[in-house]
């Protein structure tokens, strides 16, 4: 609360989108609550979450895994040094605490034993310091009270506090404890928490920027304070406005009200709100040894001398506004340390007071978070603190020095005779008027020469006449020895609460006080010359005194807090006081008791007692001396014995009863203390048990979830066992059956009762079941997988048995698993495939077909041996691109299109020339198709040599061409022949005969070329013989000559020529009418000349030889000779006729 600067708000302004961090504390039953809370988070949730859960340090936590399934947020186990991220849930890892600084998470080790750790408090405290107003804390289900202290830190730094609605929590310990601090802003079911937190921060950002709300709050602050005063009984109107306004504004945000007026209305109608605001206004920050150097000075300048100078008297210290007790313990420790060092024994009493009972409860326990230990100087830590888990407690001897009590500085009567009054950081919350009222109280309270210790930013301002500074920097002051003035008006205020402020404003009381205090003369008169006077309440309680009272009273008043005048009065005075006070208070009139004698140890004093009732209900008792003091003599002892009046004896009895009561009370208190400490011990044990219980509950939750998952997995597994067609047996290390599937029946006829029996005892449908047992032994020994093929001869079935080691979780072999896969069909299929493959191979080999196939990705092409030798390749596989390179250019595009085009499905064919190594070019044909297989499309086909087929085709085409030519030629020849014959023929018969004969000659000539064996050339002899063949037998014919080759081109011409000669001979010569013989001879002449002689020898000289060289025949002969570049010479004699053909052989 000392932090007046609105730091958080400014931070919110400068950062366009500040990160809000939500700390979540959970314990037993927290899993469920977390799940519900986080599953409500939207995708746009920009909050960062840090979950601190009490976890068993010996187990891995499944929390992140379990939560991750139920929320859109990113859930992860926190690592050391991780930065919190918006929209992320960071989860504490087991065995560590967690703290945050600069938005960075740090894993901490636990210093305390289990049971005393408070990881939630620890984290919340660091979160509060790191994030201030941007922090929120949420306390979910759990037992114990972890989180409640941390929550306070969050609140102190302006953060938001949320607790799960205890009704919805599985364990309501933690939420209830949090709620009981009165500092919780929201109590909500888990699923509403995130929404509310988001809304709050959103509103805080907007309002912080606007400032509109702040103004309206300041305007209505006075009214709000008066409502609080009426209801809660404490007036805050004297407190500083800025602080109050800020706290009120925060409440308005929490309640989601539009403005301060609405809040005023709310606080008027809701008395509870008053209580909440009251508590919230009281939050303050306090620490051990806050401003350590000031405490150093305090120790040196005040405590040391006090301890030194005190003569085994009681040293009295007052700490008003002690809050949770840190300041009081600090001072107590300083005293204890000083006493220890100086080896003295002094009774030290520290009164620590506050108006907030809850804070006092914390103070009385003396238990503080571990972090606070750092504030205590090291040498005192061991001596005065007792470590607990995550916390520490102030040692009992320090705690015994302090009395904590509810006490209002401005309302209740102050303590008196105080040696040291420490009131730090309280006055700063008060405005000037209230400060002015409080300082005189301090002055009254502190004995002359006593010290006042204030906070660093506090001062005495106008009241510096009451105290003078001894160390201004440390705010140490010494009370002057002015007469203490009892601040009566404060009492009045307590009686008339509603009007005290008005009274304080009245100046008459104040003026009187000033006169008493300032005027030493008056004081002297009162002390020395005035009558002894007592101021008592209507009940006789001593409030003040003046003058010499030793003769009337036994003890000087002021030593004790409350003393009754009657109980301290000396004999003779006591009865008078009681009745005088009673009467004066009752009648409100002055009374006087005359001729009284006060008897003391030293003598007797006659006096009158005047009782003067004052307006405020007090009574002034004035002792007026009536005669001289009569010193007591020893022999008078009997005379002055205490009166034996009835009243006197009653009083004695009362006193002894009181003393007994006092003793009894003290005894009770002692017993109570003992009980308390036993209780504390029990509580701590209980806490340990509780935290163990919480951890167990957490583990239990996690295990429950895991069991659910396992049940599902188990159900899956049973279904698998029940439904699978795979025969399977699981054996343990003793070779006993642990489990099996239903499908095992085909191998072992097992029944459910067989579980636990050795497999060896089972009947088996397999002949060589011993082999199975052997393999099982091998697997158990070697821990290696084994395969075995087994057969059922009777049924012609085959199985593959796969035996694997069965490993337990620790990887130790705990048995074996036998899996049978039936191979009967597969083997049959394999055989069939093999036979089919062989057939195909045979076909391919015989046909010399090579096989090719494209790889699946289409980038490579694969060839078998035949194909690669056809293509003269070294490798059986090559990239498609390389293959295409080898394809002749003209076909390459087609080939690429076909082989690369994925969509082509139809079979295709492709023929191309392929240089084949040493061989000449070969033609290969590649055919293929795409086939849909299980694995996708495959492109494959065959490749084969078509060189011969191509050659044959080419030859056939040439032949056809030639044939065509020849036929046409023939037509030409025949048509020419007819035409020529027509020119010379005498009759149609001659024409027909001539043409027919010549066609016959041509046919024979053609026959010659056709009949000649392949590879042998035709000779001249053949042509001659062919021509004369029709005339065989007519005459002797001699044909003789060397073999002379005749080309087909010249054959026709020669044949025609010989035909004409033969026809002539038949018509006119030796082959016809004339007797004789024919000789045909030829020889090779010079320069390749062939000379052929066709000689007809006549037996009788003939005069009339046929007219050669006339008509068509002769022309034809001449022409034919010309065609072979030859010439015809005819020699005619009576006995012979020689026709000589000379031609060049080259043609």
């Amino acid at each position: 609360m000392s932090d007046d600067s609105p730091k958080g708000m400014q931070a919110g302004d400068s950062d366009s989108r500040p990160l809000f961090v939500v700390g979540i504390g959970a314990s037993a039953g927290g899993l469920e609550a977390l799940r519900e809370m986080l599953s409500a988070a939207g995708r746009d949730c920009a909050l960062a979450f840090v979950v601190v859960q009490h976890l068993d340090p010996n187990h891995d936590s499944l929390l992140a895994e379990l939560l991750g399934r139920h929320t859109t947020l990113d859930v992860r186990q926190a690592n050391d040094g991780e930065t919190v991220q918006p929209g992320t849930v960071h989860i504490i890892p087991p065995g560590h605490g967690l703290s945050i600084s600069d938005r960075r998470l740090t894993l901490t080790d636990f210093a305390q034993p289990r049971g005393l750790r408070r990881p939630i408090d620890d984290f919340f405290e660091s979160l509060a310091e790191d994030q201030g107003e941007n922090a929120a804390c949420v306390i979910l289900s759990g037992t114990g009270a972890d989180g409640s202290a941390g929550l306070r830190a969050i609140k102190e730094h302006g953060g938001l506090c949320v607790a799960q609605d205890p009704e919805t929590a599985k364990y309501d310990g933690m939420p209830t404890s949090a709620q009981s601090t009165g500092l919780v802003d929201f109590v909500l079911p888990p699923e509403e928490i995130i929404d509310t937190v988001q809304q709050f921060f959103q509103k805080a950002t907007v309002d912080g920027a606007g400032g509109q709300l702040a103004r309206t709050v300041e305007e209505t602050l006075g009214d709000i304070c008066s409502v609080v005063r009426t209801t809660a009984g404490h007036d805050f109107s004297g407190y500083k406005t800025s602080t109050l306004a800020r706290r009120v504004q925060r409440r308005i945000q929490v309640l989601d009200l539009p403005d301060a007026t609405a809040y005023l209305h709310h606080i008027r109608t809701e008395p509870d709100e008053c209580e909440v605001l009251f508590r919230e206004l009281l939050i303050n920050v306090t620490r051990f040894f806050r401003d350590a150097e000031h405490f150093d000075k305090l120790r040196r300048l005040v405590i040391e001398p006090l301890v030194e100078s005190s003569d085994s008297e009681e040293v009295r210290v007052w700490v008003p506004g002690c809050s949770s007790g840190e300041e009081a313990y600090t001072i107590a420790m300083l005293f204890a340390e000083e006493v220890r060092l100086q080896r003295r024994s002094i009774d030290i009493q520290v009164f620590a007071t506050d108006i907030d009972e809850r804070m006092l409860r914390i103070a009385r326990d003396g238990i503080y978070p571990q972090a606070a230990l750092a504030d205590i100087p090291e040498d005192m830590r061991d001596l005065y603190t007792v470590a607990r888990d995550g916390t520490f407690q102030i040692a009992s001897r320090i705690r015994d020095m302090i009395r904590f009590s509810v006490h209002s500085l401005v309302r209740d009567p102050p303590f008196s005779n105080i040696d040291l009054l420490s009131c730090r950081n309280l006055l700063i919350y008060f405005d000037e008027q209230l400060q002015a009222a409080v300082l005189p109280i301090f002055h009254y309270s502190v004995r002359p020469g006593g010290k006042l210790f204030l906070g660093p930013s506090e001062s005495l301002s106008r009241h510096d006449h009451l105290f003078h500074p001894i160390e201004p920097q440390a705010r140490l002051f010494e009370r002057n020895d002015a007469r203490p003035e009892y601040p009566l008006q404060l009492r009045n205020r307590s009686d008339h609460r509603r009007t005290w402020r008005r009274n304080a404003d009245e100046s008459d009381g104040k003026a009187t006080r000033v006169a008493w205090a300032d005027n030493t003369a008056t004081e002297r008169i009162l002390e020395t010359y005035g009558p002894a006077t007592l101021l008592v309440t209507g009940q006789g309680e001593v409030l003040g005194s003046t003058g010499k009272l030793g003769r009337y009273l036994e003890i000087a008043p002021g030593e004790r807090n409350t003393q009754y005048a009657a109980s301290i009065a000396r004999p003779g005075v006591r009865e008078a006081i009681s009745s005088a006070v009673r009467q004066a208070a009752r009648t409100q009139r002055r009374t006087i008791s005359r001729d009284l004698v006060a008897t003391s140890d030293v003598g007797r004093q006659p006096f009158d007692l005047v009782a003067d009732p004052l307006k405020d209900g007090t009574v002034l008792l004035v002792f007026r001396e009536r005669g001289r003091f009569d010193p007591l003599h020893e022999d008078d002892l009997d005379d002055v014995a205490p009166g034996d009046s009835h009243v006197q004896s009653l009083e004695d009895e009362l006193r002894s009863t009181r003393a007994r009561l006092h003793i009894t009370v003290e005894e009770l208190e002692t017993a109570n203390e003992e009980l308390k400490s036993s209780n504390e011990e029990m509580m701590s044990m209980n806490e340990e048990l509780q935290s163990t219980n919480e951890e167990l509950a957490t583990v239990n939750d996690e295990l429950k979830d895991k069991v659910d998952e396992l049940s599902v997995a188990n159900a899956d597994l049973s279904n698998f066992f029940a439904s699978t067609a795979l025969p399977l047996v699981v054996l343990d290390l003793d070779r006993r059956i642990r489990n099996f599937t239903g499908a095992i029946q085909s191998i072992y006829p097992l029944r459910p009762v067989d579980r636990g029996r050795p497999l060896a005892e089972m009947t088996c449908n397999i002949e060589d079941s011993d082999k199975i047992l052997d393999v099982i032994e091998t697997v158990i020994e070697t821990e290696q997988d084994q395969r075995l093929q087994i057969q059922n001869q009777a049924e012609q079935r085959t199985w593959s048995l796969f035996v694997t080691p069965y490993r337990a979780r620790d990887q130790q072999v705990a048995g074996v698993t036998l899996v049978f896969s039936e191979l009967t069909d597969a083997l049959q299929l394999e055989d069939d495939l093999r036979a089919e493959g062989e057939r195909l191979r045979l076909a391919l080999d015989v046909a010399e077909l090579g096989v090719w196939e494209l790889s699946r990705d289409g980038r490579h092409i694969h060839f078998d041996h035949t194909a690669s030798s056809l293509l003269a390749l070294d490798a059986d596989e090559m990239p498609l691109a390389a293959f295409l390179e080898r394809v002749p250019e003209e076909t390459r595009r087609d080939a690429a299109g076909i082989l690369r085009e994925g969509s082509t499905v139809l079979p295709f064919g492709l023929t191309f020339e392929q240089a084949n190594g040493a061989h000449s070019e070969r033609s290969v044909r590649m055919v293929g198709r795409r086939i849909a297989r299980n694995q996708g499309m495959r492109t494959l086909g065959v490749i084969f040599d078509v060189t011969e087929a191509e050659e044959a085709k080419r030859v056939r085409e040439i032949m056809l061409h030639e044939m065509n030519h020849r036929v046409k030629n023939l037509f030409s020849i025949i048509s020419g022949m007819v035409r020529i014959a027509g020119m010379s023929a005498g009759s149609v018969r001659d024409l027909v005969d001539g043409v027919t004969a010549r066609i016959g000659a041509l046919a024979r000539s053609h026959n010659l070329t056709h009949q000649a064996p392949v590879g042998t050339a035709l000779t001249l002899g053949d042509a001659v013989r062919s021509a004369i063949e029709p005339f065989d037998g007519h005459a002797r014919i001699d044909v003789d000559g060397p073999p002379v080759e005749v080309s087909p081109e010249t054959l026709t011409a020669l044949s025609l020529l010989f035909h004409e000669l033969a026809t002539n001979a038949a018509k006119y010569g030796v082959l016809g009418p004339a007797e004789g013989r024919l000789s045909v001879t030829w020889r090779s002449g010079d320069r390749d000349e062939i000379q052929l002689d066709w000689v007809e020898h006549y037996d009788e000289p003939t005069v009339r030889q046929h007219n050669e060289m006339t008509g068509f025949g002769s022309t034809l002969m001449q022409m034919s000779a010309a065609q072979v570049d030859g010439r015809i010479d005819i020699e005619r004699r009576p006995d012979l006729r020689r026709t000589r053909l000379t031609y060049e052989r080259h043609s």
Partner: protein
Amino acid sequence: MKDTVNMEQPERGTVLLCEDEPIVALDVKIMIEDAGFRVVGPFARVDKALDEVDGDFVAAVLDVRLRDGDVFPVAERLHKRGVPLIFHSGHIIEDDVALRFPCAKHCPKPIDSRAIRAALRAVAAAS
């Protein structure tokens, strides 16, 4: 010979004839002579024909394939000198010849006397 009468008529010019088939050669020769032209040839060989190619011809009747090869060298020479060409062949590749000698005429075998006569007259008239 019936056509001797025609021989006596004034000659229309000289025609070079290449043909390696004796009967066809004779037939064509007679046809050309009947049409009133003098014939040089027939030549069955390219080299023989080349010996005579520089004569004064009004036309040339050429078989494409001769005994020693294609007639094109002869045709080429004649074409250069502007002698009109008439091809008669049983197996000429029409496109090939047409490409090399765009102006040449064609008379496919078997030869029709009227066709060759018309062709000769046409070239004679042109010259």
